[in-house]
């Protein structure tokens, strides 16, 4: 996908598969609400997190996940805030489209997590089909 196609795609999404690291370095995954605004992906976290949290101490925060998605899981970014967000739709094989965003999760003053993207990959199987 082009960068504008990726942005358009992300604007239509409301959740991501958030991959994080456990303290022992093993991977973990959760479904997390998201919003894409101004070329930035924000992961929505529980509003009961203090709005006074300083981003400077953000790596020490374990955010809650919105209760309507995953009330029992709190992805822990304390040991390592490197993450990957996977977003995909697959109505049919040649309609599979998706994006993976690699980067770091940084809590904002509003209690969300901002995804500071370092690398993006995308795929659109419809384009594979169109290849001669």
């Amino acid at each position: 996908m082009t960068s504008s196609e990726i942005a358009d795609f992300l604007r239509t999404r409301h959740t991501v598969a958030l991959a994080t690291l456990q303290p022992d370095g093993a991977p973990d995954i959760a479904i997390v609400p998201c919003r894409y605004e101004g070329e930035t992906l924000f992961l929505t976290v529980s509003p009961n997190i203090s709005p006074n949290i300083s981003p400077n101490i953000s790596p020490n925060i374990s955010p809650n996940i919105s209760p309507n998605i995953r009330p029992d899981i709190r992805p822990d970014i304390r040991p390592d805030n490197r993450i990957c967000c996977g977003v995909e739709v697959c109505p049919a094989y040649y309609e599979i489209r998706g994006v993976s965003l690699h980067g770091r999760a940084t809590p904002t003053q509003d209690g969300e997590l901002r995804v500071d993207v370092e690398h993006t990959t995308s795929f659109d199987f419809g384009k594979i089909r169109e290849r001669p």
Partner: protein
Amino acid sequence: MPTLSPDIDDFLTHHTRSMLVTLRADGSPTVHPMLALWRDGALWFNTYQKSAKTQNIQRDPRVCCLVLGGVDELAPPAVIVHGAAELMAPGTLVPDAPLGAPVVRPTGVSGGMVRKVEDRVATAKRIMFRVVPARAELIV
């Protein structure tokens, strides 16, 4: 291997859409949308022998996987599986579904596509790997 609840077993039997997480060389996580088949107590995947997934698993087999219903928004119900990925010997194919069990295939995946994958597995261009759950949970 832990005994999975009937709910989890039933969900994995009927759904193939998944997001697999492997670890890159620097230890960071990476997400791969995959098709996962539940056979004989394991999730089975296939990929190219030279893919990043294969290299990641060879380096560190620790993975987790989100198996989803639906075809659009990522949302519960879903199952999360944690475990170690095991690369199968070249030429190994996914076991057949038990007699009477549903053969779940995503929309638009034809028999011809399946045969092409099997041919590529037979020639070791593609390889199968499986994940036996060390733990699994159903998200509702």
